């Protein structure tokens, strides 16, 4: 019986065999995880929501990289980009860049990347509403001509967010394929190429002919192995054993054990992690007492984010400022006087005061405050089931509300139901942070917390509060159409902040961290506060923030 099993096991193993017998040298390999949540299946740069992390950044590159810590643009495929007139933007491209199939990278590729969205429905097709033309002036120069009011702020975002495609490959595809191809052998210009895949991993191999070797230096790891690690406890176990070089998971307990196991985090002490996005409590302004700005403001005063930060996140995150802005790119527009005058902080007495003043008192004597008409109020705060840190957070928030006499209960619907409810408006309060990530312009943030796309049956682009204020929408739109150097842009930004703080449709709570823990068994010289040589983030679509730079600066531990 047992012998039979050995035979069968052998046969099955043979089935598992791929053609090459091979193993990667550990000291040439970077093992990381946190951005890959299932078997790699898609390397299509036109579907950034589904691509294997690294497709953008490691294989396909951008015109610019953006360094969030210094708020600087690093010329990448472009060497220079500037507004030659208020309606013309010119890009000078890098010479000598080659696609990994040997063809040269030219201005035609950039033009194609934009043109393809003109004739096909792609996620960035809307740029053609305000771009007039994209031309290749020379093989290394592209000229963008804009309409009347260029979306300057949005453009700032596009130039480091749009993956440039090789025309000679994509022009031969049928339009149906643009969204449906898996693009299993991606041809890019980047420092890495797809090497092999497994059910639980994606392996990248270094492109030794990368143009950047001469410009920035060569990335140190010959191989990048991106592992699927399903849970943070396994990730922690692997970190403890030195099996994982870099982990981008939220891992409870890291502050407690980081020194014992020699883990590196960005900051040595609190808050350990860089901030990556703002977590906000959205209040459904179409419902009951939440229609009332004073009531919403009172809620803001009632929440004690310190407790959440301390207990739930063990100080791995920071409390948000009242505007929700953070990071160099956004903070240059932060208006401290506005924040102080119209902002809030944890102050339950103040909250009670506001509620009492505005007539939100307990009329029926059940211990809970009632609305202005004396009707009982009850609120439900939702976050997706299984999102443990958020689940704990809304328990705290519910307690805070209960403490000032507002009947609020936490509730954890499944993710699908949660999504449904925030999109169709059948919720009271929810936490969300889906598009509040760091960027070069606060426009992306404001355009998400207060987007005007709230008239449809479903609200999918942010502003789950459904806060309807044309004045605010106009302000944000005007901000988009201004250059950073324009006069009056600061005032515009201040007005937006003032508006959001007085109306308080959503309450900034804390900044979710860029979770990053690394071990030093194989690689050292990690990017940290003291050694800000990169951005240790392997999440999809974020590699242009300094991940490649970090790879270049890594040093082998041997």
């Amino acid at each position, binding site marked *: 019986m047992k012998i039979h099993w050995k035979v069968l096991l052998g046969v099955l193993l043979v089935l598992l065999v791929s053609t090459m017998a091979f193993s990667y040298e550990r000291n040439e390999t970077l093992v990381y995880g946190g951005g890959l949540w299932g078997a790699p299946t898609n390397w299509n740069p036109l579907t950034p929501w589904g691509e294997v992390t690294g497709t953008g950044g490691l294989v396909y590159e951008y015109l610019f990289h953006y360094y969030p810590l210094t708020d600087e643009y690093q010329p990448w495929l472009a060497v220079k980009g500037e507004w030659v007139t208020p309606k013309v933007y010119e890009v000078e491209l890098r010479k000598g860049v080659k696609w990994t199939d040997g063809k040269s990278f030219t201005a035609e590729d950039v033009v194609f990347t934009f043109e393809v969205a003109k004739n096909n429905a792609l*996620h960035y097709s809307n740029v053609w509403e305000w771009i007039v033309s994209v031309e290749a002036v020379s093989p290394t120069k592209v000229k963008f001509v804009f309409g009347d009011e260029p979306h300057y702020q949005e453009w700032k975002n596009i130039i480091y967010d749009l993956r440039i495609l090789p025309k000679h490959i994509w022009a031969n595809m049928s339009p149906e394929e643009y969204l449906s191809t898996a693009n299993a052998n991606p041809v890019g210009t980047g420092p890495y190429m797809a090497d092999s895949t497994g059910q639980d991993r994606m392996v990248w191999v270094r492109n030794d002919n990368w143009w950047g070797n001469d410009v920035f230096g060569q990335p140190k790891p010959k191989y990048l192995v991106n592992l699927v690690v399903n849970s943070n406890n*396994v990730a922690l176990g692997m970190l403890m054993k030195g099996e994982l070089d870099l982990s981008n998971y939220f891992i409870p307990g890291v502050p407690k054990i980081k020194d014992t196991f020699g883990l590196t985090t960005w900051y040595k002490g609190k808050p350990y992690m860089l901030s990556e996005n703002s977590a906000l409590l959205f209040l459904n302004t179409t419902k009951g007492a939440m229609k009332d700005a004073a009531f919403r403001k009172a809620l803001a005063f009632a929440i004690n984010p310190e407790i959440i930060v301390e207990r739930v996140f063990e100080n791995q995150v920071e409390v948000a400022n009242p505007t929700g802005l953070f990071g160099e790119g956004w903070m240059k527009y932060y208006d401290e006087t506005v924040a102080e005058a119209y902002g809030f902080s944890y102050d339950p007495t103040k909250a009670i005061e506001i509620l009492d003043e505005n007539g939100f008192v307990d009329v029926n004597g059940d211990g809970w405050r009632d609305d202005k008409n004396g009707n009982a109020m009850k609120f439900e705060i939702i976050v997706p089931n299984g999102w443990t840190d958020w689940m704990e957070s809304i328990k705290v928030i519910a307690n805070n509300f209960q403490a000032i006499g507002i009947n609020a209960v936490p509730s954890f619907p499944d993710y699908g139901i949660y999504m449904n409810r925030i999109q169709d408006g059948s919720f009271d309060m929810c936490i969300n942070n889906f598009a509040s990530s760091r960027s070069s312009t606060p426009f992306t943030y404001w355009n998400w917390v207060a987007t005007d796309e709230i008239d449809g049956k479903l609200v999918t682009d942010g502003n789950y509060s459904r806060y309807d204020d044309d004045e605010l929408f106009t302000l944000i739109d005007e901000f988009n159409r201004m250059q950073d150097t324009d006069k009056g842009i600061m005032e515009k930004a201040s007005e937006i902040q003032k508006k959001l703080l007085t109306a308080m449709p959503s309450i900034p709570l804390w900044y979710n961290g860029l979770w990053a823990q690394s071990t030093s068994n194989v690689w050292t010289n990690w990017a940290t506060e003291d050694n800000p040589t990169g951005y240790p983030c392997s999440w999809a679509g974020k590699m242009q923030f300094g991940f490649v730079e970090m790879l270049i600066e890594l040093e082998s531990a041997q």
Partner: protein
Amino acid sequence: MKKYLGKKIFIYLITFFFAVTIDWAIPRFMPGDPIQMLLSRFQGMEGGREIIQAQITASFGLDRPLLEQYFNFWVSLFKGDLGTSIYAFPKPVMDVINQAIIFDILLLVPSILLSWIAGNKLGAFSGVNKKADKYMMPFFYFLTSSPYFWFAVVVVFFFGVQLPWFPISNAYSATMRPAFTIDFILDFLHHWFLPFLTLFLVQLGGWAIGMRNMIIYEMGSNYSKYMESLGASEKLIRKYAFRNGVLPQVTGLAIRLGNIIAGALTTQIVFSYPGLGFILLKAIQNQDYFLVQGCFLFIIIFVLLANFTVDIIYMFIDPRVRFSYSGEV
């Protein structure tokens, strides 16, 4: 015999039809929209999401009437096409499952069979040996009472973290590439061992208990007494008791299969082991209709086939089932 088989096959076909229909219906009754889910965390340009959403929805045929979707589902099912995964887009569901299922087979089949064999042997020993039974029985109970995932966590703690003998996640080392070499096989087995051990031990407890009870029961049965009166040796009686005791254990195998699969699922999650369980969970979380459907379909077919096999084996080893006459009360 032929009639019996024909009847069984008929029943299994009906079962298959119902199960597959329910399987098709389940994901579609789920609230939420898988496409919204897919795009939920996509931070794109203003209005960009709407453009692609319509495109993707149409490409999956999700804009068609439900009945038409159901009909198309059966048609493509007979062509062996389970559709395209939304979550693992654009991979066909069949490919996703095919690549994962090897890990399930390597984990499930040896653990089921070895634990069944070892459990029956140990249980039989415990059943006839009163002294050993005293210590072994509580141990078996402990094993079978443990939730799979909890046992996995304990195993990880002791043999992965405290004594770092075994890796605690994935199917093979990060630096390995699948190849038919000694190095790779050893590395694979090294990773395979702890999940296997978890499944093996928890199952073992159940089989051992079952066998132990059967042996004690059989040894006290009329038949054994009769044999004893005929002067049969203790050893012979044990042999017969074992043979009779194995019968219900065979049925037990089919009945518990669903349980074991669920156990394997949780175990795979603890170990980040890339099998079907892992994929199923992802599919459920992402409301990937087609992948959920495909995974359930495979599980259903697997369970049906196993049940059918057991039915047939049973028919051969116990001729009585062939003629289960009606009695009258």
